[in-house]
């Protein structure tokens, strides 16, 4: 009986470093899945620099935005497009002047590494039986891909063959597993997996722009802003560029 | 000890009973389904929809007109149901101690000693025999120090030999612990032995009340097959006088002869009605050791036989004869008769 009580107590003791005193020293950042390795590297550097720990919840920007709207306790939001950020700003959850937009990326078509499929244009995708896309209804990577295919005039043909995934990394994994003949992801995602190869780089796709902002209601707003400044500073940008992102010279806002 | 004036709607009829009971041992008799158990439950406070008054020795348990309705846990009424209903997840000792909160260790000792269940205390109820369970149930009720005991056919479904073993305990409860009880039974022998007053219930209405002897007679006269078990039960004292395998047994003013059990002291014996011989004239010399002169008080038919109630030597006897024999002897109430009973017909119950 006592053993049971002891176990209960141990479990209900906080699993994280405890509250108020060190609350300022840990940030919760919601970030687009494509940023996974890069912001983790930046956060490690940030922590050794300032002592503030950053934990992430990675997912599709659409889903993360939904959670923030519902009151999730995020301190900052790193979205893969401006549309999601606009939505949040419209609800008064972030302030326009706090937004930082300096990061871009490139779309690519990936196929399983041992696949012989050759893609020479958007139209070639129509010949495939299936195409994996991060859900074009709500995930920026899918929205960009859809825009690209619409502009190329082939969306109508391709749409019935699209298999939507919950986020861009799920799309990558679907192709890497060999279950899908091809998928559209960012060039930075392709670099992460050895099981895919790039079949086509989208040079004429829509403008990709990430949008970063601290959440206005956050109790750790100062630390969140500091982190975003750091990510947009020379060290942060170096990390992004090394991993294949493109950075814009000056913050677009 | 208790005044009742209650009404309770039941499935097929209404229970409506008004009586004032003064004896320390009152019987509740009547055919199955006449509302006896419901009446007990109403007194214990375990039934909804009871209206009227119940007053036990000045304490008002129920007065629906004034909105007084004491919850069962405050009525100090001990209820021993027909199936003992021991708490299966508690040991015998825990069952007996159930109602005792702290309480006097002496009360516990008394209860378990009077019912002779000390060796059973650590056992689980599932391992007990029927008779043992009934004794534990009685001990549990007594240990709660009730001001009134309600016993619902505590000896029904218990075989004859076992029944005999429990009857003395009931006598001890009546005499030594002096707890008044209301006792439901079908067994007229039990009733005659244990009880002083009686209520005869039929379809929820009282048909007879008063001293137990009179109630038994009236119920016998009213007749019908009430499923009653008829036995002659006698409680008395075994005497020093013993000879040829037979010992004297004094009941009231009468001396009977029973098979010698080898000791003196209290005893309870039963005689089946068919073991009693009835003579319309004095018996000169007969092999039976017990010959008594008496008078027929009533007679009725029961399942092809004639049951004759006789008062002899101050004791109440029930004798069963074939209808033909009864007709031959011409047994009307008031007739002088002689009874002959062999000593061997007396079965010891204790």
């Amino acid at each position, binding site marked *: 009986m006592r053993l049971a009580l002891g176990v*209960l107590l141990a*479990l*209900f003791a906080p*699993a*994280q470093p405890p509250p108020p005193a060190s609350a300022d020293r840990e940030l*919760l950042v919601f970030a687009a*899945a494509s940023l996974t390795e890069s912001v983790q590297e930046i956060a490690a550097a940030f922590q050794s620099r300032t002592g503030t720990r950053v*934990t*992430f*919840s990675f*997912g599709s920007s659409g889903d993360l935005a939904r*959670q923030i709207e*519902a*009151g*999730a*306790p995020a301190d900052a939001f790193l979205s893969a497009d401006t549309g999601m950020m606009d939505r949040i700003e419209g609800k008064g959850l972030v302030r326009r002047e706090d937004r930082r937009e300096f990061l871009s990326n490139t779309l690519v078509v990936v196929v399983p590494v041992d696949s012989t499929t050759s893609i020479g244009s958007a139209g070639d995708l129509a010949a495939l039986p299936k195409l994996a896309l991060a859900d074009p209804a709500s995930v920026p990577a899918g929205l960009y891909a859809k825009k690209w295919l619409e502009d190329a005039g082939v969306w109508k043909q391709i749409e019935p063959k699209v298999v939507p*995934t*919950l*986020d861009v*990394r*799920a799309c*990558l*994994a679907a192709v*890497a*597993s060999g279950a899908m003949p091809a998928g559209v992801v960012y060039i930075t995602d392709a670099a992460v*997996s050895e*099981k895919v190869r790039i079949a086509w780089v989208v040079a004429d796709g829509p403008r990709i722009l990430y949008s970063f902002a601290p959440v206005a209601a956050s109790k750790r707003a100062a630390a969140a802003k500091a982190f975003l400044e750091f990510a947009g500073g020379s060290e942060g940008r170096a990390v992004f560029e090394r991993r294949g992102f493109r950075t814009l010279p000056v913050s677009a806002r | 000890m208790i005044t009742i004036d209650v009404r309770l709607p039941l499935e097929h009829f209404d229970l409506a009973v008004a009586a004032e009971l003064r004896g320390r041992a009152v019987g509740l008799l009547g055919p199955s389904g006449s509302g006896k158990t419901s009446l007990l*439950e109403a007194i*214990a*406070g*375990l039934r909804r929809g009871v209206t009227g008054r119940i007053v036990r020795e000045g304490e008002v348990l129920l007065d629906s007109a004034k909105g007084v309705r004491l*919850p*069962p*846990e405050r*009525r100090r*009424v*001990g*209820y021993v*149901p027909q199936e003992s*209903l021991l*708490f*299966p*997840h508690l040991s015998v000792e825990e069952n007996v101690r*159930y*109602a005792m*909160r702290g309480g006097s260790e002496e009360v516990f000792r008394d209860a378990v000693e009077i019912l002779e269940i000390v060796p059973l205390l650590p*056992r*689980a109820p*599932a*391992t007990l025999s029927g008779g043992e369970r009934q004794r534990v149930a009685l001990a*549990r*009720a007594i240990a*709660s120090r009730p001001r009134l005991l309600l016993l619902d056919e505590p000896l029904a479904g218990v075989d004859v030999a076992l029944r005999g073993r429990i009857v003395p305990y009931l006598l001890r409860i009546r005499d030594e612990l002096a707890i008044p009880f209301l006792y439901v039974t079908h067994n007229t022998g039990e009733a005659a032995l244990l009880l002083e007053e009686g209520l005869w219930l039929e379809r929820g209405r009282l048909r007879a009340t008063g001293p137990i002897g009179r109630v038994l007679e009236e119920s016998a006269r009213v007749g019908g097959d009430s499923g009653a078990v008829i036995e002659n039960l006698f409680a008395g004292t075994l005497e020093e006088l013993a000879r040829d395998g037979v010992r004297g047994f004094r009941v009231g003013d009468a001396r009977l002869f029973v098979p010698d059990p080898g000791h003196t002291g209290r005893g309870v014996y039963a005689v089946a009605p068919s073991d009693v011989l009835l003579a319309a004239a004095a018996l000169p010399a007969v092999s039976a050791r017990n010959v008594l002169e008496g008078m027929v008080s009533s007679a009725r038919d029961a399942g092809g036989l004639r049951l004759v109630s006789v008062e002899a030597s101050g004791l109440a006897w029930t004798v069963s004869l074939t209808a033909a024999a009864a007709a031959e002897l011409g047994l009307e109430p008031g007739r002088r008769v002689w009874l002959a009973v062999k000593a061997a017909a007396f079965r010891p119950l204790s």
Partner: protein
Amino acid sequence: MSADLSIVLLTLRVALAATLVVLPVGVLAAWWLARWRGPGRSLVETMLALPLVLPPTAVGLLLLELLRPAGAIGRLLSGLNLEVLFTWKAAAIASAVMAFPLMVRPVRTAFEEADPRLTSLARSLGDGPIRAFRRIALPLAWRGILAGTVLAFARAVGEFGATILIAGSIPGRTQTLALAIFHRTQIGQDAEALRLVAITVAIAFVALWSTELLRTRRSRRLRGEP
């Protein structure tokens, strides 16, 4: 490995919290349903059984509407400065709601099968209604309560649909075993996902086995065997 451990601890914390809440509430609801004969019983019965029948995401969405800052309960919580959504407490709430009907059913059956005369008898021996419930009805229903607890706990450990809507899948805070397995398969980390599956199986095994041990031991004791 320590990531796995923290997921397990989080899951256990959520499931235990949910079970601890569901236990008393469920037992009382089961008692009420077993004894109440009056009007409204069928309605309450049906409503309590809804989480069994509705898809977990539907339940999750309903909970979200209640708990969001503008919602009926969310407003209260904000007033009290309590943060619930997207924390482990929301995960516990999701699990509790989904597990609730699984607790009520077997306990209610146990109460219904028990002899009501035993509680009546306890009343006549001096117990008030609550005391009689505690000393007689409750212990006699132990089998149902044990079954209900195990089912509720198992359901709580595996809860996904409602959890992901009101607690999200935040690693370290609300990403329970079920959510983590899903996430890992999504990003192609099959080996890591399978590891978590193995841990889940182990937990389920231990829970069921210890329940079985408890049950046989108590049965033996009640029958009077050593």
